[in-house]
């Protein structure tokens, strides 16, 4: 069934500004459910959702699971380890088995770029991409957008810099598409070894020095430096990374007073971000986590056929 978002949410690259804003608006509506004593509404009652995680993830999986449960969906979690995948079953076989079980939605996390789309093209269920390789992580970007909008009242015209390992980051790509679509100026900053070959063709500026990025930006979205990048030689050492690209209070002194600092977590304190920044007045990192559940509720609701304008009514009782 075609919905407002289409059948699936694979990424933000091909969503319109209207669709992105509708997700954010719907998420605003759903936020309140999480404040209730009984955090459950019947929006997805009778729907079955499989959370198919081929890659370890704690916070994204839990966030989706909370979103699903708060909407009264029946959920099953499948982790790659311990499943038939570990026995050599291919993704297409997994897809066929899911199809045979007549499930309604699949939330998929996979280490290969394009895996979510691959699945979506082969099963009739709605597919939500919870991160595919280094391609996209749309719900993470949506919660980042919602958090920025909550704090600054708008996205349009803001200067947002994504700092760190853009090369391997699905979060960065989704953020770039979403921010550009909503009218933000976007930059990236980090060592050139951790930037894609043609990063500027994505429509972003590239700052080689963190000091320039901080001076320019209204918002910093600081990415996690995965430790295996250091072992693979992309950066010489964690110490050096922190020294040249870490976001510290000293460096933030040059920033505008109301600069926002985001981080998709989990953080390496003292590497890409210092503790006094992570816990400081500019940080909105915990708001991101809260918003994650609301955004995922909104996506699931819209993919299930809900209309953006009917979200308030759909919440029903449960208070």
């Amino acid at each position: 069934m075609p919905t407002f978002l289409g059948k699936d949410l694979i990424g933000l690259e091909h969503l319109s500004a209207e669709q992105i804003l509708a997700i954010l608006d719907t998420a605003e509506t759903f936020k309140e459910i999480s404040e209730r004593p009984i955090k459950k509404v019947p929006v997805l009652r009778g729907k079955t959702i499989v959370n198919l995680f081929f890659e370890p993830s704690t916070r994204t999986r839990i966030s989706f699971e909370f979103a699903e449960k708060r909407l009264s969906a029946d959920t099953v979690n499948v982790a790659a380890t311990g499943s038939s995948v570990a026995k050599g079953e291919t993704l297409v076989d997994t897809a066929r088995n899911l199809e045979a079980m007549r499930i309604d939605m699949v939330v998929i996390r996979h280490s290969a770029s394009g895996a979510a789309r691959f699945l979506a093209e082969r099963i009739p269920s709605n597919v939500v991409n919870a991160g595919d390789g280094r391609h996209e992580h749309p719900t993470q970007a949506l919660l980042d957008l919602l958090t920025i909008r909550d704090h600054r009242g708008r996205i349009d015209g803001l200067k947002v810099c994504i700092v760190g390992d853009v090369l391997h980051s699905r979060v960065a790509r989704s953020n770039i598409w979403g921010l550009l679509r909503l009218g933000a100026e976007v930059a990236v900053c980090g060592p050139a070894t951790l930037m894609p070959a043609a990063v500027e063709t994505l429509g972003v500026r590239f700052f080689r020095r963190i000091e320039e990025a901080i001076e320019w930006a209204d918002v910093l979205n600081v990415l996690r430096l995965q430790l295996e990048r250091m072992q693979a030689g992309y950066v010489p050492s964690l110490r050096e990374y922190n020294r040249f690209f870490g976001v510290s209070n000293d460096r933030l002194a040059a920033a505008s007073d109301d600069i926002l600092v985001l981080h998709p977590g989990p953080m390496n304190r003292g590497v890409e971000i210092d503790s006094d920044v992570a816990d400081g007045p500019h940080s909105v990192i915990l708001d991101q986590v809260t918003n994650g559940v609301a955004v995922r509720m909104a996506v699931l609701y819209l993919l299930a056929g809900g209309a953006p304008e009917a979200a308030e009514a759909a919440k029903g009782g449960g208070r």
Partner: protein
Amino acid sequence: MTRPLLIRGGRVIDPSRGFDDAADVLLVGGRVEAVGTALGAPDGADTLDAAGKVVCPGLVDVHVHLREPGGERKETIATGSLAAAAGGFTTICAMPNTDPPIDDPAAVGFVSAAGARAGHARVFPLGAVSVGLAGERLAPVGEMVEAGAVGITDDGHPVYDAGLMRLALEYGRSFDIPVASHCEVRSLSRGGSMNEGVVSTRLGLTGMPNAAEDVMIARDLFLAELTGGRVHIQHVTTKRGTELIRDAKARGVTVTAEGTPHHFSLTDEAVEGYQTHAKVNPPLRSEQDRRAVLAAVADGTLDCIATDHAPHHYDEKEQAFDDAPFGLIGLETALGVSLSRLVVDQHLSLPDLIHRMSTGPARAFGLNAGTLALGAPADVTVIDTAASWTVDARTFRSRSRNTPFDGWTLTGRAVATIVGGAVVHAMDGAE
């Protein structure tokens, strides 16, 4: 013994002799007996009406993966050579990266014998450069040549050790064989699944930069210059690579090289949507590179068009992009794609195209093929250059279907393929 065959009334193009005229071709006893006008058919001869068609030396593909031994569910020597015949090829060179690899005379003999037994096309094996394709010590090159190998290569396992490559080029001189080289510095392309560029950035796939190819092309050209050996650069895909080879040829380095139909007709945009049939190594590159490869085929910098026919079973390609194997098949589409993209689009004359697909590759590997000279093997391809047809992979003779050209409408195809005077492939109405 095959009966004599008179091919009547075609436009005969034989680039080996600069011949291009209306003529008959008479094949007797597996040899070219005569090329001329109004030839009479000997008693008991078959005739093939080639009016309106092009008659040329059988096409030669110096880069084919037949997967046997070890990968028979993808292709066998019989099915691969049948696909070759259907595509107009009378001679194919089989790559040695099978399982087990072709790295000793017995294995070379096995491939030759299986090719002869199937009888669809001439199958010439290449032997490995190194034992087990391990890149450590030379395989028994002389013995393999004695057993029928026409060259050596470690193909998809590039010879990293420059010293070993030097030895291969030097030792190969004793037997006058080329060393074919898949030029890829793996430490630059590691983890990559497509070309490094705008598309890989957007799709979030790891890119393989042009430099990974260029650096090793440069190395091999220097080593060929040093040793005087014959190096054959496989599937050139980069603008810089074509320039390096052009410069080396001008300096007199003994180098031949090949371009593939997919690299001069597709760019990395074919990967959009994570299309695994467009996942190939070396990868489809930028439009600038595509044009450079096309120009290099046109000016002869690339002597050969080769397919790098790389069959894979459908379920191997039916995976997430990173998990799918590299490679696509080309034997049954190469002529149509090349005619459409090079001749119809006016980058290359028809005689020059036939040169690149027959005489050029035969010369590069020293094969007794690629010519209609009197006494030459009676290997002939009859081409309908005007035939418009739509690629339907389901009809392929190959055991695999992994082509990015499925559904393409092409101009030109082989309507008859003749090996040793025997018709091994004929489209309806060709006889």
